């Protein structure tokens, strides 16, 4: 139905652009990761695997990488714990005000990321709202310091930011659960819990996977929340990348860490895509 000329016209411009501004840059990143910096701070093009070796040998990088993965797991778990029941409530129990309630989850997404980061800083700081409140009620007598500048603060802030991201695909998948299957399950005598466990939960698994992937990957790549509320004990892998590209000036090592993250994300995407296919009813 469509001529060759038409197909060429729609294909070539985005293909050329994406190659130039995405494929080539990722390839450059890959090349950089094998280069090194000389003592005169010049990048030398002698190909070697030193950067990757350093990533796994240097305890600093490895500890931070593990911490980032732990934080990402915690945020993913919490986002699902908050997002799933909310999505379930909206999909099955919010009858009249469903659209309004849905919009209420979306609205925080329109608030700037940075603004929400600062808000948590205001709340958790030693002269912050939470400490002020606790002293006002005479629960504590001096500021609790560990609220801010800790992995806990990073997890809290990122859970707040990424819960809507986890909610969206879960809600979409719950909306697609055929209601007659649920009725059939009830009619056949299954308890509500059994219906949830054996009908609704398996059918919403693609949404859970998509939501978990979003929360995990976005948390893993985050460098602002650690900067704002993390302190030195809440540093994550992206902060190291940022410093390697800035003050520490070791682009090749930064590139190697970035490429590992890229690889991790792409692997995760492939894995969830395959799992989603397995659990999607056709």
């Amino acid at each position, binding site marked *: 139905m469509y001529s060759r000329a038409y197909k060429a016209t729609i294909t070539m411009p*985005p293909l050329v652009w994406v190659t130039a501004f995405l494929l080539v840059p990722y390839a*450059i990143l890959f090349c950089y990761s094998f280069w090194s910096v000389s003592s005169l701070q010049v990048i030398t093009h002698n190909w070697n695997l030193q950067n990757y070796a350093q990533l796994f040998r240097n305890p600093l990088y490895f500890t931070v990488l593990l911490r980032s993965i732990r934080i990402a797991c915690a945020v993913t778990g919490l986002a699902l714990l908050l997002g799933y029941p909310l999505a379930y409530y909206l999909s099955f129990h919010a009858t009249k005000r469903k659209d309004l309630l849905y919009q*209420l989850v979306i609205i925080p997404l329109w608030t700037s990321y*940075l603004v929400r980061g600062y808000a948590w800083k205001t709340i958790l700081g030693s002269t912050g709202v939470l400490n002020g409140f606790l002293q006002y009620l005479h629960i504590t007598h001096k500021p609790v310091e560990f609220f801010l500048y800790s992995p806990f603060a990073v997890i809290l802030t990122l859970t707040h930011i990424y819960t809507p991201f986890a909610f969206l695909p879960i809600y979409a998948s719950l909306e697609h659960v055929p209601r007659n299957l649920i009725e059939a399950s009830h009619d056949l005598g299954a308890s509500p819990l059994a219906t949830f466990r054996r009908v609704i939960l398996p059918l919403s698994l693609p949404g859970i996977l998509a939501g978990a992937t979003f929360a995990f*990957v976005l948390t893993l*790549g985050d460098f602002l929340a650690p900067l704002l509320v993390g302190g030195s004990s809440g540093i994550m892998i992206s902060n190291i990348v940022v410093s390697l590209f800035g003050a520490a000036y070791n682009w090749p090592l930064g590139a190697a860490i970035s490429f590992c993250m890229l690889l991790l*994300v792409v692997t995760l995407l492939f894995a969830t895509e395959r799992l989603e296919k397995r659990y999607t009813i056709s």
Partner: protein
Amino acid sequence: MSGTFRSSRPPLLTGYALLVYAFLYFPIVVLVVYSFNGSGVGGFPPSGWTLDWYRQLFSDAALWDAVLKSLIVAAVAVAISLALGLPAALALDRAQFPGKALFRRLVLLPLILPGIITGLSLLMLFVGLGMKLSLITVTLGHGTALISVATTEIFAGLQKMDRVQEEASLDLGANHWKTFWHITLPNLQVSLIAAALLIFTLSLDEIAVTFFLIGRDNTLPL
């Protein structure tokens, strides 16, 4: 049918949902309340209501300069990503070419890949080309990263579109360009507007890509 299905509201779940909403809105409410606070940020209870902060906000010239720059970057980023996202969505929908699967993954990758990786990959490209970092590099970065959003939205619109109209137009002798202009584009209007709004907002709030490509011109989130 769905009406007969459990219209009752389990109180435990309702309460839980309320708590989640409270969690989502708590920081935003705190920030709004403390923006009127006389003694600056922090402390409890807030004391001395004032509009001083807002007066400072509106008289800060550097800040408004940054706002203007952000708006310009966002507008151009919308133009770039729609101009490339539209053909990309059309190509994914109706053209077959070698490397199509890779092309699809590549276009959509910035949607999920942490912005820091896309940002510094582009930084290496621009530095390699000898380009100076400026608002132009930021705009190119935003435009490129957000093609993913444009493509997803428009592709969804194309999936819902009825092909019959296009076929009829072509059968009746209109060429591809006319068909595109009179049939395809009007049918995609809603998707295009939705994509533009989304891209505009995402560009305003984009930090990671901006961080690496900005040089010395500051936009709003920074």
